[in-house]
């Protein structure tokens, strides 16, 4: 692949992770356990959709085929998506929703924190903007992990299960493939493995405070960010996300 194609793939991943996580959170509108949390989730979802727009617009420019953020979001098929398995996971109960948001936001905090120094200036600027928001997401979700983990017997049990269920998908985030390696070699993206210690420290500190057990690292699936083997959930997410443009192609406001 040419550098430009690799960069397109890489930026697409950043955009798709933000888009699908944002879409997942949007599904909770009208379903949150209380009004205050409803507002919080909607605001966090909006941050991620905003980040997705910035990344996908840039991806479209890199590709140079005239596709804009909307076309990339609404007209690509499942296999052309490049999002991590983590963001595809269902909302589940509130513990799962918060555990997923926490594990992913803590990853994004490290990733964007690195990208601020990327040799790609546009990525650095987007990351600088997004980093401020993501720090807040880590705080909000981290507080819920602690509150539920160190809460009642029932909330503890549920949060422990959520962390265990989702731990499986943390491996892919830190497993570099040839796209990650090429970007790291160019100074555009980080060495993913090098981000892990800081992420681990943060996550473990929260789990400790939440009186939760850190799951063991076993075999972990990959295949989301390279589109090789998505979860069965992604198609369902897209059927809702893309419904309007599928039913009425090219429809505009």
């Amino acid at each position, binding site marked *: 692949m040419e550098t430009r194609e690799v960069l397109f793939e890489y930026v697409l991943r950043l955009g798709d992770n933000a888009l699908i996580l944002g879409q997942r959170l949007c599904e909770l509108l009208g379903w949150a356990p209380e*009004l*205050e949390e409803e*507002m*919080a989730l*909607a*605001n966090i*979802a*909006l*941050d*991620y*959709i*905003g*980040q997705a*727009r*910035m990344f996908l617009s840039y991806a479209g420019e890199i590709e140079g085929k005239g596709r804009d953020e909307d076309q990339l979001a609404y007209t690509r098929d499942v296999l052309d998506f490049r999002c991590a398995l983590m963001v595809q996971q269902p909302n589940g109960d509130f513990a799962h929703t918060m555990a997923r948001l926490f594990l992913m936001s803590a990853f994004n905090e490290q990733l964007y924190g690195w990208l601020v120094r990327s040799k790609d200036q546009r990525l*650095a*600027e*987007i990351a*600088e*903007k*997004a980093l*401020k*928001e993501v*720090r*807040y997401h*880590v*705080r*909000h979700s*981290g*507080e819920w992990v*602690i509150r539920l983990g160190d809460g009642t017997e029932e909330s503890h049990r549920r949060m422990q299960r959520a962390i265990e269920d989702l731990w499986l998908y943390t491996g892919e985030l830190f497993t570099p493939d040839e796209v990650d390696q090429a970007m790291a070699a160019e100074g555009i993206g980080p060495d993913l493995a090098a981000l892990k210690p800081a992420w681990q420290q943060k996550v473990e500190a*929260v789990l400790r*405070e939440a009186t939760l057990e850190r799951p063991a690292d076993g075999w972990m699936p990959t295949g989301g960010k390279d589109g090789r083997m998505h979860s069965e959930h992604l198609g369902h997410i897209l059927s809702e996300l893309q419904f309007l443009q599928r039913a009425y192609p090219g429809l505009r406001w």
Partner: protein
Amino acid sequence: MGVEVRDPELERIRAVLTQVQDPEIPQLSVVDLGIVREVVRDEAGVPVVRITPTYSGCPATALIEFEIRRALDAAGFAEARIETVLSPPWTTDWITEEGRRKLKAAGIAPPAPGERRGALFARDPEVACPRCGSTDTAKVSEFGSTPCKALWRCRSCREPFEYFKCL
């Protein structure tokens, strides 16, 4: 980067911008909020208005650009360009003194200095009630009607109010 020298045309453009309201907090102009970063001339001498979005997903961003465009056109500055800059990212520190005064007048407490950003279970900042000035206040909800505002209430005068969060 353009040099900020006295330039009557740019001064007039700045004056026009002080009349463009923020769509979500109409008491404040886009200048008060620090959304307008600078008004300069590019190499060709064309006036450029540099603006910065507040939050990535702020739905008002596109509308703000549209309103600025409309105001510039109406004032005879159709040739002026609008440029969006992301870096450095917008911060509430850029809300002007005038903007903070207007926020308070509108019943919205301006961002408190020294609010801790990021620590888990951080203590809430000391926020003065925009109506009676009392600092005996409490946060009701981290989120309010827009991404930038939280809901608070005053224990002295018992009124609810909005607080413009630090970013």
